[in-house]
């Protein structure tokens, strides 16, 4: 999976905002790539462009050789999407969710059934596979959500803050799931605010600020480049730089006004 020169601009004139600018990165097979950054850094916009939900103003994303510009549906078919905010249909059972999303990803009934059996076993859904999702516990819902996201056995997994709002047990489930996907040779793009988690899970990192990729590399490479020991300290530096930039911009605009 490769993002090449991605750029997204919202609004025009004085309302013009560059959410993502000249963003390029690549995720290898069996690699978890942590896309990190403070609020407003451009993570969600990047994910939405990769998913084909937003059209890039410039640049492109290719997944499994398919371009999101020319073949967004083909790109979507190659991606599994997991998010903390993704809900489930209250009146449908986990098994029916798998059946529905299997169809949505274009699988035939036989393939869907085979994948559903496999995932039911992998995520231990059997005990509640035929219960309405409205009556499931948070952990059960989460496992159902994972199974739903990989029903089509995607080559790439996009995880948007999948641990938000979860207790320690839930976080462990997510971590285990992502590790297993990596071990299965999948490319995983992992977005989170929980830096400790990212540090444990990701193989490489991209640190975003104001839509631009400021730092990229393995943890060791980032340590060498920044002189900082962990991601939290690197993040603080990023935020300080951002604050300094804002202050400088304020001074400049005040000077221009006077």
């Amino acid at each position, binding site marked *: 999976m490769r993002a090449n020169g991605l750029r997204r601009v919202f609004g025009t004139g004085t309302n013009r905002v560059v959410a993502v600018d000249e963003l390029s990165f690549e995720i290898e097979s069996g690699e978890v790539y942590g896309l990190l950054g403070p609020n407003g850094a451009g993570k969600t916009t990047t994910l939405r462009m990769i998913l084909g939900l937003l059209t890039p103003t410039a640049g492109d994303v290719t997944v499994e050789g*398919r371009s999101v510009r020319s073949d967004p549906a083909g790109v979507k078919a190659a991606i599994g999407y997991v998010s903390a905010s993704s809900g*489930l249909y209250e009146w449908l059972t986990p098994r029916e969710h798998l059946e529905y999303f299997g169809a949505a990803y274009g699988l035939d009934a036989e393939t869907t059934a085979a994948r559903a059996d496999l995932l039911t076993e992998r995520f231990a859904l059997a005990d509640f596979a035929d219960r309405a999702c409205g009556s499931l516990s948070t952990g059960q819902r989460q496992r159902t959500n994972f199974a739903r996201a990989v029903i089509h056995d995607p080559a790439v997994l996009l995880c948007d803050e999948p641990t938000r709002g979860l207790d320690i047990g839930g976080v462990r489930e997510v971590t285990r799931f992502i590790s297993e996907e990596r071990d299965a040779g999948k490319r995983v793009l992992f977005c989170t605010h929980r830096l400790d988690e990212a540090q444990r899970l990701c193989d490489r990192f991209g640190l975003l600020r104001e839509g631009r990729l400021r730092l990229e590399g393995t943890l060791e490479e980032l340590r060498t480049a920044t002189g900082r020991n962990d991601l939290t300290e690197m993040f603080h530096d990023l935020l300080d730089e951002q604050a300094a930039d804002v202050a400088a911009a304020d001074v400049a605009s005040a000077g221009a006004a006077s």
Partner: protein
Amino acid sequence: MNGNTSAPRAPWRPLILKEFRETFRDSRTVVTLVVMPLLLYPLLGLLLRQFAVSQVLTQARIDRPSYIFAFENVDDQRDFFRLSGIDPPGTVLTEEELAEQTDWLGDTEDARPPRDEVDIQAGVTDNAKLLLANGEIDLAIAFAETNADVPSRRILMIELENDARSRQARRYVERKLAEANLYATVEALERTTGRVAILPLVSDTTAVKPLEAKSTLVVYVIPLILVLMTITGAVYPAIDLTAGERERGTLEALVATPLPTWKVVLAKYAAVVTVATLTAIVNLIASTATLLATGLAAPLLQGSSPLALVGGTLSALVVFAFLFSAVLLCVTGRAKSFKEAQAYLIPLVLTALAPAAVSLFPEATLSGPLLVVPLANVVLLTRGILEGSADLTTGYFVLLTTAALTVLALAYAIRIFGRDAVDSKQTGWSELLAGLRGDGPGNTAAVVLLAVTFVSYAVGSGSLAFLGTAITPRLIGGGAVTALVFGYLPIVYARGLGWRLADTFRLRGASPLGYAGAFLLGLSMWMFAYEFLIALITDEQEEQLTRLFTSFEEQLLAVPLAFKLLFLALTPAVFEELFFRGPILSGFGKKMSPTAAVFVTAIAFGLFHVVVRGDVFWGRFPSTFFLGVVLGAIAVRTGSVWPGVLMHLLNNGLLLAASHYKEDLKEAGVLAVESEHLPAPWLFGAGVVAALGAVLVGFAKPRPATKK
């Protein structure tokens, strides 16, 4: 959710099944669907019954009954009032007389039947049955000839079938006759001699059918109930399946799949339509059962069969459910939450109720502009079905208009669904338009364009009624509507979608052979189209045609031929050909074989021509379909629209000219006075010319397409 090249094909069954499971497992749907009607209608029935009883009692107290009787002759009238004890017309009772009304049997000193405060009007007529059937009198009364063997005077009464007032009048007379007999008996018994001959009065009753069906309260109210029922059923699932997706957070996962929006929306639409229809069925059954159980069916339906009412209402209801469910998805698809969806629905329901309320106006009929007013046409059709006055052809027209609007509403619902979840440039119109964009139209574009144009044309031609009956403004208006609907709109549409106008509308010229062939076909084909029309037309359709055109034709004769040719030949020839043999034929031709595309386009061409002067005339379909096939074949063979324009112009022009000079032609002996058919030699000649034209067109080769 974009549809494009490598999007996997999602099977329909699981998609629809999911929407049905989500809808029917929700207890709130079940409550709306089953529990509410089961509780609501018995309660309403009881209230209605109570209301009806109190109304009847109040009516009895307040109203002074009045009846109109008709007799065959003055003697019968005189004898009737004398013998029956009914006060003749104009009798005014004094207060004392009224005070004597009770307990007359006990008052033996002055025994006489009670006298009623009933106004009677009476008259003599030879046409009592007709007056009765027209509702102008309440009862026709006559004396049968006295039979010596039977010691009685037989009174014959004729009442109006299924008419409450007439029935009351008859019962009143029967009661008065019984009282008169009893009085005579009592009087006789009082006389000790017993020599007074008692001539008992007996009566027979027959009934006549009313000339015009009388609409009952139910006929006016049911269409409104229908709207409310369908709204009740469809609203909740529509909100749940659209705004609910957002509120639950399931939309995000859904838009992340390659499933195209149109498939998602159509699956949801199937669920909403099903619930709406089922709700209406349950409501209809519950309301009918309540009417029957409470005994309100007879007085409210006034003799109509409840089963017929249910069947008729249901058929119109399904049509309504299809349109309304699509409109609901348009509205709820915009909402981000249940609350927002409910806020949007209030104006929608009010908007829906306004045209539905048209059914409450007895003078509103399903014709002219009302034919194409959504919802109003459906409720008026329902009323027509209930009254037994619905016209099948008009019914089909309403179906077509509603289907076209449903397609448009669904297109809009697809456009807006999930819009906030994805880039506005990537979904909705863009997704729809992405399928329509390109060098030229495809199947979908042709269908959407037909739907838009059909509605615009129906509205446009219906609006011509506002121009009055004068011929000149109507001709100019008709020409303007034709140019606008078939010319301007498709060109705007084509330009907006980036189609190549020259290719889409086949604007390039044809070879001389093509023009020559079309010229010969234009000279001849109108005769076959005309013969087609009169051969296939039924008596009923002929009557309709006469009704539609009698005054029009007379007015038209006064218009100069050149003026008629401009607005009734040239304008339709140019713009209809541009439209039908342009984007429609090109669009269908993308995936179909040229022959299939020609036939499908000809069906559409024929359907457009059944709208005649704000009415629907199906008799025109076969001949216009036939012409459509010929015109389509010319366009395909020559690769140009212009030979078709030439043939269309000649076809219309020659028909107009023949009509304009009909009397002259008859006088000159060219046309037979007594026959509607064209002379056989003409038809033979036309056959030869048409065959030659077809050969020339067959040899015409299309000019190469313009380069990109």
